[in-house]
């Protein structure tokens, strides 16, 4: 079984490796290690990982969110959470993890979890999309013809709705995602503000307001090539926000 070890602490990863080496049944092969959730997702895509031993508290992207993104893939790996303190058990259960181990992990417990992973089918591993309640994500996830792209929420300048997609404009370029502006607005109320029926901008990238030739107000947004139009309806909220800043 192809295993990926994900933990931000090198010593915790090396202990996991040692435990896996001690366990004879099932036979496992550690195909990689990752130090945060985002790297874990990228490695899973690249290495055809079957089982992920996933820490929860990590920088960049935590384990719960990584599990949520992983569950959306075509061949989701089985997820075994390994965490220091069992306060996230409920959230982990919601993320359809096949097991939840507390550190320091016992070899017998790890073995039992791995044996369970062997028996799982793809369908069992696929979590419902609404897996993780209301906590906002650190990354948006785009799947383009099976390839996965992750965009850090902190790097996004603005989001523009086009037909049934949303175009994410970030420091890394543009990406299409299949989500609605409305749900994004609700998920990140502190991060994005609506300036138009089809547009959300990052609050901390708003640099100022301008007027175009016809006298319409526009927002100057860091990272956007051109000023973005502000609709009459959204104007009072934007003015209040600018005053507040």
């Amino acid at each position, binding site marked *: 079984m192809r295993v990926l070890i994900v933990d931000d602490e090198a010593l915790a990863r090396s202990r996991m490796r040692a435990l896996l080496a001690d366990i004879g049944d099932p036979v496992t092969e550690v195909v990689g290690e990752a130090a945060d959730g985002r790297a874990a997702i990228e490695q899973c895509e690249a290495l055809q990982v079957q089982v992920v031993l996933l820490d929860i508290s990590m920088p*960049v992207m935590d384990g719960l969110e990584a599990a949520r993104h992983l569950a959306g893939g075509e061949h989701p790996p089985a997820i075994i959470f390994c965490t*220091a303190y069992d306060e996230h058990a409920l959230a982990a259960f919601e993320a359809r993890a096949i097991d939840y181990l507390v550190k320091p992990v016992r070899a017998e417990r790890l073995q039992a979890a791995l044996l369970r992973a062997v028996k799982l089918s793809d369908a069992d591993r696929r979590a419902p999309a609404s897996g993780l309640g209301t906590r906002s994500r650190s990354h948006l996830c785009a799947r383009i013809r099976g390839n996965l792209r992750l965009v850090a929420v*902190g790097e996004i300048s603005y989001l523009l709705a086009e037909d049934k997609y949303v175009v994410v404009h970030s420091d890394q370029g543009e990406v299409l995602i299949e989500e609605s502006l409305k749900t994004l607005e609700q998920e990140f109320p502190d991060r994005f503000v609506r300036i138009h029926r089809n547009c959300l901008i990052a609050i901390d990238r708003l640099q100022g307001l301008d007027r175009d030739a016809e006298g319409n107000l526009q927002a100057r947004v860091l990272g956007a090539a051109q000023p973005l139009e502000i609709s009459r309806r959204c104007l009072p909220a934007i003015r209040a926000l600018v005053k507040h800043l």
Partner: protein
Amino acid sequence: MPDFCSLGVLGAVALVAQLVALVIIMVPDPAAIMNLQRVVAASFLVQWIALSSAALLCKLGPRIVGMSTSAGMAWAWSVPLVVTAVISAMMRLVDDAFRFGVIPEDTTTQPFVISAVVLSALFAAAALRYFYVQEQLRLNVERESEARIDALQARIRPHFLFNTLNTVASLIRIDPAAAERAVEDLAELFRASLNQEKNLCPLARELELVDRYLDIESLRLRERLQVQRLLDPDAMDWPVPLLSLQPLVENAIYHGIQTRADGGALRIETRVEGNTLRISVHNPKPPAGTAPALSRGNHIALDNIRQRLALHYGHRARLEVDSGPDYHAATLFLPRMTRS
């Protein structure tokens, strides 16, 4: 038993004695309050008795405290009686010898002394009862705040414990010597957190505990954790509550350094500013757009420190938290207090 050697208690004794003196002369003859000579004479007699009794109780205090409550009360009560008998008899002699005429001529020595002792017994009983109840109240308050300090102190994050145990489990195979050191550091931290030293410790001791803590965390975080120390040499013996800085450092790691893939520098700065010691902990914030923290331990730790500062210092110490676009800082301001 209150401490009769303390100025506060002596003041209370003198005040009660003065009131008793006024009552004694006013009850038989309300007009006597205008007679300065009688007021002075009665005050002098009562104060003399009261303060002598207090002085004796001050000297006998340690012995009386060692007795059972009822025996102690009996002894404490008998002191003013004996003192009254002796002093009132002397007063009678002095008055006769110098013919002050303070005590009416028609009262003979025996009834004067007896009536003085009876009055003294009544008032002393009331006063002792009052002091006893007040002392009990004070002890209760003290016990309660001690219990609260206990409860507040024994709080090192469970995360930290389990993470450290995991680190040790890993090190045992790779580097047994480092595992040994980590166990020793962990033991020292837990001993301090379960400690009997409820009072203050020198800053140097607290910094030592912080170093033990940081040693453990650097095993876990490796090069992600950098520490800068800007320590004022004059501050080293300043008394601080045990484990008042360590939780701030722990917060800085859990909510700052650890949330960043590239880690960051934690800065600990101490400085004496006049009568105040300033200790600040400075750390970089999580990068923008990071999902909200999974654990909400932050405010619990800060509230906990604030409550302990209030118990130790009242309003004279404070904890300030300050946040910029890319940093977070917590600063303690502690007045100088003698270690009790």
